[in-house]
């Protein structure tokens, strides 16, 4: 009874193939967008944006990117942190070199630069697969972080190797630097997220996405039916790195405002984003969101409950937080190895039939 599908007929292929075929889902999607764009910006404060929304949106973009590569094209990557660093440092160099250009273009160009770097590091994927590719991308992670630490040109020769985001604006609204209003920071991240999620969804259900999935499911069979593995793999690396690069650029310029390669973009970041898509669901757009929400919001929530509401010592709470989040990950993966997205899919199927089980 939750879903009322009576009378919801599809009369064309276009209707049948839309992203949200169920009317109620479609309505929910538009309501969520309306709330996110029209209501939330008027209510957020610094804490909500800096602790919750900005990291959630940016990690969701990164998770979408990695999901394209790992979930859709089947190429395991442990280099996400390094590619985020490419986006961040590219954005920094562009912001400093061309202060008059709109920051949106800097972020997009940073994504483009990351795509090129990603393709370069993706070349070995033509020869090696699975765990071996994971090790090759791991090498890119370490190489890139080492590079940004080693070559002072990337951080403009500052004493500490830190990069700092100067103040930049979009149509007169400041979006980077300390004087950014909470709503501006929220909206710029949200706009990028919505646009990129829309692109990701349409890429993955089009010809490109089908080629990627063919390569993922069985590369030899895909090649026999005419998929060019070189093109498929390279486009997957390029698209994925573009997303990750945009996430890195936003992470540095809008969210943190200052970053250093080793601390902000280390191997832990690669694992964090990999965990997001594994917990959220490989090969699922919704899964990228769910995984990012789980990994970003859960610790903040637990901390607020344990320290803020229950008054526990901070160290005890921090340790307990690890145990609870770890336990939940294990629990979710036992209950549903295909992630939160699959859990949601099953729930939805039940809800559609409920209360009539047959």
């Amino acid at each position, binding site marked *: 009874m939750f879903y009322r599908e009576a009378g919801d007929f599809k009369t064309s292929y276009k209707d049948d193939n839309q992203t949200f075929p169920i009317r109620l889902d479609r309505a929910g999607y538009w309501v969520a967008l309306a709330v996110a764009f029209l209501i939330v910006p008027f209510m957020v404060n610094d804490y909500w944006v800096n*602790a919750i929304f900005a990291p959630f949106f940016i990690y969701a973009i990164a998770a979408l990117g990695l999901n394209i590569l790992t979930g859709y094209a089947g190429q395991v990557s442990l280099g996400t942190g390094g590619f985020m660093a490419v986006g961040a440092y590219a954005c920094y160099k562009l912001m400093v070199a061309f202060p008059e250009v709109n920051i949106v273009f800097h972020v997009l160009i940073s994504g483009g630069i990351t795509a090129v770097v990603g393709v370069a590091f993706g070349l070995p994927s033509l020869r090696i697969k699975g765990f071996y590719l994971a090790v090759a991308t791991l090498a890119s992670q370490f190489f890139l972080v080492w590079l940004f630490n080693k070559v002072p040109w990337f951080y403009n020769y500052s004493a500490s190797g830190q990069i*700092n985001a100067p103040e930049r604006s979009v149509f007169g609204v400041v979006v980077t630097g300390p004087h950014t209003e909470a709503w501006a920071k929220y909206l710029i991240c949200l706009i990028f997220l919505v646009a990129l999620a829309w692109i990701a969804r349409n890429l993955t259900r089009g010809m490109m996405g089908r080629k990627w999935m063919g390569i993922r499911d069985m590369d030899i069979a895909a090649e026999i039916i005419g998929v060019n593995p070189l093109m498929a793999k390279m486009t997957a690396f390029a698209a994925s790195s573009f997303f990750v690069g945009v996430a890195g650029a936003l992470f540095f310029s809008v969210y943190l405002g200052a970053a250093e390669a080793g*601390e902000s973009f280390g191997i832990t970041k690669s694992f964090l984003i990999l965990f997001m898509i594994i917990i959220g669901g490989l090969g699922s757009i919704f899964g990228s969101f769910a995984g990012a929400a789980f990994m970003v919001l859960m610790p903040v929530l637990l901390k*607020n409950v344990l320290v803020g509401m229950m008054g526990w010592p901070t160290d005890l709470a921090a340790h307990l937080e690890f145990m609870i989040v770890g336990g939940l990950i294990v629990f979710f993966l036992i209950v549903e190895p295909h992630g939160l997205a699959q859990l949601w899919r099953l729930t939805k199927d039940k809800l559609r039939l409920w209360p009539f089980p047959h």
Partner: protein
Amino acid sequence: MTYKRVAAASVAALMVASPVMADLVFPSLSYRTGPFAAGGIPYADGFADYMTLLNERDGGVGGVKLQVPECETAYNTEKGVECYEATKGQGALAYNPLSTGITYQLIPKATADDIPLYTPGYGRTSAANGNVFSHVFNFPANYWNGASAAVNHILDLNGGDLKGKKVILLHFNGAYGKEPIPTLTALGEKHGFDFSTVPVDYPGQEQKSQWLQIRREKPDYVLFWGWGVMNQVAVQEAANIRFPMENFIGVWWSGAEHDVKPAGDAATGYKAVAFHGVGNDYPVFGDINKYVVEAGKAAGDGSNVGTVIYNRGVYAAMMLAEAAKKAQEIHGVADITSGQMRDGLEQLEITNARMAELGMEGFGPEFKVSCANHGGPGTAAIQQWDAASGKWSLISDFGPSDMDVIQPLITADSEAYAAENNIEPQCK
């Protein structure tokens, strides 16, 4: 979506539970977990215990109680940002995050929010130029003073001539560890020693390859910018390759009891730079034991009282309390705001007489902060470890550092920052 709703409820509850109180609030962005907890715990304990002491013994500062809400950062910049946002609404007067990375993050934010940052012996060194960094204070000494003090000590040992000597900086490969490189490079050119760096990546539990490199290059001296778990590993590795310990000199963050004890007797002779006194022979620690530890109000288990990093936490808390007092005097109100706190820090004067009153005679230098100089005198001494007695002792007086080299570097770095961010000089 349910997560968000519960999060909303809990955050709302948090906001309701802690309204803005008429207290002097000094949030402690501490880290009691993670690879740097070894240093983070005693510092946070010292910081909180001194504030508790003031509350218990003197009834706060100027009759207003002090409050130290703690927030766990694990030395992670993202959590640091979250902690900053979560605590600033409680009326925070000043931040002391004990992390150079988080400090870099907070410098622009705190300046925009009109909240001062106090970063004694860490953070952005060029913040000593108050003309550019209006809200950042790093007195009484900064990294470059420390680097210079270490070089001065080597000069003393070699009769003032370092030509042809080889000095290696073993450092944490992050903002903190890279800070001294420009100064040491400049000092190397000035004194003619051969300077090179060996970075250690986070968290630094594994340093075999670095020490292999050191063994191969046979340096005369190794300077060390490490923190947390990295310190004890380095001291142990130095002992393993039989590097002469008296030629191995750490900065003040690499010279605590927990850094040298794991290596046992082999650590004897290891040196570190210090910007304040060592040991617990100061009356203030008697008071802390009496009013805080024995009363069961200590932040930790009380076992750290008198250790190097704990003392530094006490020292930092003392400076903030004194600055709050100064701010109350300047503005004539007991309940100061963060902007007034900034004025208090900027006009702070620490005299030996005042230090004696506080029960910390000779613990730190006399100095006066000014609008242009937020860095203090920059004096430092060398302390040495003796494993048999289990004690650090100062082996030199607090001496000045080479400001001829440091000042131009501070000016250059701060002016680059000012140019990047369009900052007008604040001092008339």
